[in-house]
């Protein structure tokens, strides 16, 4: 294409310029068409999910494909929350996610600060030992983690669900990177004022690390909210199930109440969509970071 365009001749040149503009336009149109088609393929399950979640059972069975519920009803939500027990599951999930979020942020940041700033002997080796665990496939640690939890008497308990999530090698790595980039002068000033290591961490470093803490916090929350295999294994009592395990139970029923599944799915996705809207930049920044470092 480029070669034909560079051919001389003044009359030819205008025509060629028009041709160039035309190909550029059509290229843009093709790109947009592709993007819109791809965007539709990403979004259509959600359109159906939303529409069907507002349909009554009879409306769903007569018109499962329409995207406009006739008439819209909230009864499926009521069913999902009560008969489907989504209310209980939702409460459990919020509890698990909140506890893991707070405790892991504290434990990770404390360790990360220590690895970044306290010059204790053996620091590098211990940090490498933490990083190395990132390589372990969850597939291998699943059974022994269960057996250890079982040995500690933690099966079918709240503690059993949250305890293994209290520390994360990725979180320690992320926060340590961040702490390393904070200028030392800020701490020196605090040290001169008589702050110990903990005072410096709590009063100086933690407030400065807010962006990194938010990024990590969003990831911890998303992880815990969608966590499925571990609670499935450790719990046996439905009263303690998180939403993920609860929703999966709908699948076991012979005659699936699809509208309730759609309502339940909408309820589970809702906090995540809100979080995504609020913290989009943090989420995308965090993923980009993990990709660039890796």
């Amino acid at each position, binding site marked *: 294409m480029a070669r034909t365009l560079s051919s001389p001749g003044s009359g030819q040149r205008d025509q060629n310029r028009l041709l160039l503009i035309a190909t550029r336009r059509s*290229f843009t149109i093709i790109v947009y068409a592709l993007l819109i088609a791809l965007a539709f393929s990403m979004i259509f399950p959600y359109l159906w999910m939303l529409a069907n979640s507002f349909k009554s059972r009879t409306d769903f069975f007569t018109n499962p*494909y329409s995207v406009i519920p006739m008439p819209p009803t909230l009864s499926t939500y009521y069913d999902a929350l009560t008969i489907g027990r989504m209310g209980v599951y939702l409460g459990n999930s919020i509890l698990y996610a909140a506890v893991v979020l707070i405790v892991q942020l504290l434990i990770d940041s404390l360790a990360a600060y220590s690895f970044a700033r306290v010059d*204790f002997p053996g620091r590098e080796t211990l940090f490498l030992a933490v990083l190395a*665990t990132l390589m372990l496939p969850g*597939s291998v640690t699943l059974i022994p983690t269960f057996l250890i939890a079982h040995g500690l008497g933690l099966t079918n308990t709240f503690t059993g669900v949250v305890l293994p999530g209290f520390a994360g090698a990725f979180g320690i790595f992320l926060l340590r990177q961040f702490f390393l980039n904070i200028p030392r002068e800020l701490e020196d000033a605090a040290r001169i004022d008589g702050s110990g290591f903990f005072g410096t961490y709590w009063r100086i470093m933690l407030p400065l690390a807010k962006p990194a803490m938010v990024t990590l916090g969003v990831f911890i929350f998303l992880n815990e909210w969608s966590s499925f295999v571990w609670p499935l294994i450790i719990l046996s009592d439905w009263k303690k199930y998180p939403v993920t395990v609860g929703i999966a139970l709908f699948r076991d029923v012979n005659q699936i109440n699809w509208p309730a599944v759609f309502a339940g799915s909408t309820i589970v996705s809702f906090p995540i969509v809100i979080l995504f809207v609020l913290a989009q930049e943090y989420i995308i920044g965090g993923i980009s970071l993990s990709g*660039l470092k890796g």
Partner: protein
Amino acid sequence: MTTLAQPSQPVQSRASRQRELWKRVRKTWPGYLFISPAGLLITVFSYIAIIFSLYISFYQYDIISEARPFEGLENYTRALSDKLVRISFRNTFIYVIVIVPSITIISLLLAVLGNQVRRGRALFRTVFFIPTITPIVVTSMLWVWLYEPTGGINKLLELVNIEGPNWLFNPSTALPAIMIMTIWGAVGYYMIIFLAGLAEIPEVFYEAAKVDGAGRWHTFWSITIPLLRNSLIFAFVTLTIAAFQVFTQVFIMTQGGPMNSTQTVQMVVYHYAFQRFQMGYASAISWMLFGVIFFFSALQLKLFISRELY
């Protein structure tokens, strides 16, 4: 003088080094205190766990009975001749071979196309990203309905006059159905990885290519791809590791059926460990999977890194 002093020097410095070390420890002991909660958890749930896992893979180990006889390599040899294990490894390999390149190529396409347009860039990014942050249990449930004989997918196919199969109940379409859903759910994440990689490529390269009269296609192959190397390696390796351990989609959508056509290694590990309580045998299978994952990750890294030299 110097020759005489030399032999005694290391001894002296060792003593003084030890004193120095103690001084440092005394000054920095809170450092150990700060890492101890994380250290304890990681020790128990990673290090002790993995050693324990290897240990019980040589035993007949179930939770219920007290007798746990040593079996040597029995569990491993049993796994090699176990038909279910063989089928699951085959299915998992097929799954990995299809999924990893598909997700890499499609997400790269999304990133590159998304970068070409000015209007609506953020909107496209958001839309492509939504499946990634939805819990996989939820997306799996949604797709179970979509794959019903009278579900959404077949309705869409009907519009173009194709009669869709009973996706999840047909042994030849069940695994592809799970793969399609997984690709759909993962491309948004890797698109973000590639967008970050694209943003790192200096604009100068593209300007230079334009001056040289290089077309879009040529620019893509000779500038974008080589300079995205790090992101591509990251995507390929992490995807491979994750794909080998596929579980939740299969558990929700097919439970390994129909006729074991979607049985994956992790499903089999779950089956033996938590439905038949043969923890030792299941651990042995999980170690075999670990070995396979380790082999392929190492191979990929070696291949990619040797390429760097050209």
